[in-house]
């Protein structure tokens, strides 16, 4: 499972912590408020009892019959929040307020405070505990008061929480900006791009990271350069003796007049040419397998294409038609690898074309190399295997079976794709290979639009 970015996590943790602290504060305040409210309300009950009791006692004792029950009528219509009653030690009710129902009082009279399911009751005794006054207040008034008070306290917090969210978001983003930049820079680095990382205002704690990465990339660059040089040197060391052999054989061919020896020398030269071709392909394959392609920059391809095709023409292959776009084409390629790709696919087309027919090479504005030649159509199973190493499609020509494998490896490494078609669309013959290179579409479109 993909973990959340550190910035998002930090944001959530800080906001969660702030919310929790506020909730704890609010709860503690609520408890404290509840206790204080209870004290106030209890004090009111006690005060009411102490005020009413003497008056009620005088009124009861002045009666003809003390045991006569009396309920005081309401002087005006109002909600009676506090009710009271006076009872004797036998539990007989002698006096009560107009809303003081009998079901409210909850059994035996106990001096002091008592809490029933819905009420808070204060009882006070007088005249050697022969008379009691009980003052009752429903609990829901206290609960409503507490709830309203807590809500009033929470209200500013509800507005402050989004504000804190925005403040924390801004702060985290500001602090994380260099970290994010570092992350982008690091993720952009690969064997294609080993440019040192340079970020301003990086936090002290993160400074060792780019330093270590830059050091590592420097070492990788040195290793890649060494690899490139090794391939180049290996090519040189191998080609020089082969060149000597070829030149000497050619000289001998010119000097020897005996037809038998001349024929043998000719065979030797053909074998040597095959060896030269094979060593070339193996060196190209070694280069293709190596990671040392330079793909950091976008290069113009038109001139390079002309240069390579002209080279073929100078070597005697005149029947090559090159079609290039009107505007320059840019693609992220390693120039040497690009040349190897073009050489191999053109070489392939020249080798397998039928009846010395011309080969068409096209570079399109969207960085496609299209090479077509006339030949008998290939079977699908042959096409599917053409890019495999040492695979040779049935043909009278002898090849190393490495050319298209090299092309395929290099194209994949450069982030491109390869497509082979035989017979060519809208025809019943021919072979066409299309290499799509990774291109800067915006740049090429802009050039196209000019």
């Amino acid at each position, binding site marked *: 499972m993909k973990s959340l970015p550190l910035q998002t996590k930090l944001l959530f943790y800080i906001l969660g912590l702030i919310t929790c602290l506020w909730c704890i504060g609010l709860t503690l305040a609520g408890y404290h408020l509840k206790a204080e409210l209870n004290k106030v309300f209890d004090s009111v009950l006690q005060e009411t009892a102490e005020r009413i009791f003497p008056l009620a006692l005088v009124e009861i004792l002045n009666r003809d019959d003390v045991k006569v029950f009396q309920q005081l009528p309401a002087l005006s219509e109002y909600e009676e929040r506090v009710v009271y009653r006076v009872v004797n030690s036998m539990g007989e009710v002698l006096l009560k307020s107009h809303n003081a129902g009998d079901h409210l009082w909850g059994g035996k009279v106990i001096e002091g405070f008592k809490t029933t399911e819905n009420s808070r009751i204060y009882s006070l005794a007088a005249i050697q505990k022969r008379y009691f006054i009980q003052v009752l207040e429903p609990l829901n008034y206290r609960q409503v008061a507490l709830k309203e008070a807590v809500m009033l306290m929470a209200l500013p917090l509800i507005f402050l929480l989004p504000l804190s969210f925005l403040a924390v978001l801004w702060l985290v983003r500001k602090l994380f900006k260099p970290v994010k930049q570092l992350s982008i820079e690091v993720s952009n680095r690969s064997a294609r791009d080993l440019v040192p990382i340079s970020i301003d205002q990086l936090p002290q704690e993160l400074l060792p990271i780019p330093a270590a990465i830059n050091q590592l990339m420097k070492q990788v660059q040195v290793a890649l350069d060494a690899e490139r040089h090794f391939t180049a040197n290996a090519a040189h060391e191998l080609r020089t003796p082969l060149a000597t052999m070829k030149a000497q054989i050619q000289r001998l061919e010119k000097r020897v007049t005996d037809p038998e020896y001349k024929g043998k020398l000719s065979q030797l030269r053909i074998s040597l040419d095959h060896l030269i071709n094979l060593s070339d392909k193996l060196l190209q394959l070694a280069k293709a397998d190596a990671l040392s392609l330079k793909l950091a920059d976008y290069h113009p391809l038109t001139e390079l294409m002309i240069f390579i095709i002209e080279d073929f023409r100078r070597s005697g292959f005149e029947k090559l038609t090159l079609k290039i776009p009107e505007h320059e084409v840019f693609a992220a390629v390693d120039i*040497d690898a690009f040349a190897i790709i073009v050489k191999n696919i053109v070489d392939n087309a020249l080798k397998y074309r039928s009846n010395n027919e011309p080969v068409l090479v096209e570079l399109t504005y969207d960085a496609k190399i299209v090479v077509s030649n006339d030949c008998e159509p290939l079977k699908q199973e042959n096409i599917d295997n053409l890019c495999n190493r040492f695979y040779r499609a049935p043909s009278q020509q002898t090849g190393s079976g490495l050319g298209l494998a090299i092309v395929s490896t290099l194209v994949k490494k450069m982030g491109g794709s390869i497509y082979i078609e035989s017979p060519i669309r809208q025809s019943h013959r021919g072979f066409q290979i299309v290499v799509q290179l990774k291109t800067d579409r915006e740049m090429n479109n802009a050039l196209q639009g000019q």
Partner: protein
Amino acid sequence: MRILLIEDTEGLGEAIKDHLDDEGYAVDWVKTLWSAESCIKTTCYDLVMLDLMLPDGNGLNLLLDIRRNKIQIPVIIMTAKDQVTDRVKGLNAGADDYLVKPFDLDEMAARVAAVCRRYSGNPNPNIVIGNLEVNLTEKVVYLSDSKVGTHITESGQFLKFLSIIQDSCLVDLDSKKGLYAFGAEIESNTVEVYISRLRKKTG
């Protein structure tokens, strides 16, 4: 035409020299940069064939020196470095052509001839003197469009000489110098002998 061949590989240098000799060029073969510099300072060459990786340095530096000193000699690089970047580097340094080893000796000779023609300002491989036409590529002489001699290999030097003097009536010493390499036996009447042979063939 006189060519300076700079190649440190014994067998290869020998084969190239022999082939160019057969083609009618006078070839001075040296194996180090130091010797090449001395040759260029003292002798006027028509073409330099330059290997890059030499025992005492990179041939590219010699090429840069030649161009820096504004010496107008065509230079063909011969090297085993086949990468396009190396070739572009060589051509940008002022080389006129670039041959990748191993190469075909006939292709090499064709490139040498093409570069020489380009430098002489006459890209045409045919020398025309009056109604006499000499095809330097095929080594064939035509008189009034009729073939009078084929594969005059032994007169390769002479044909080159004709190409030098085709626009001039006088044969000067410098023109003749271009026909002989260091150590070659110079016969003072070589040109005269070949002219005599050609006269016989053309009637």
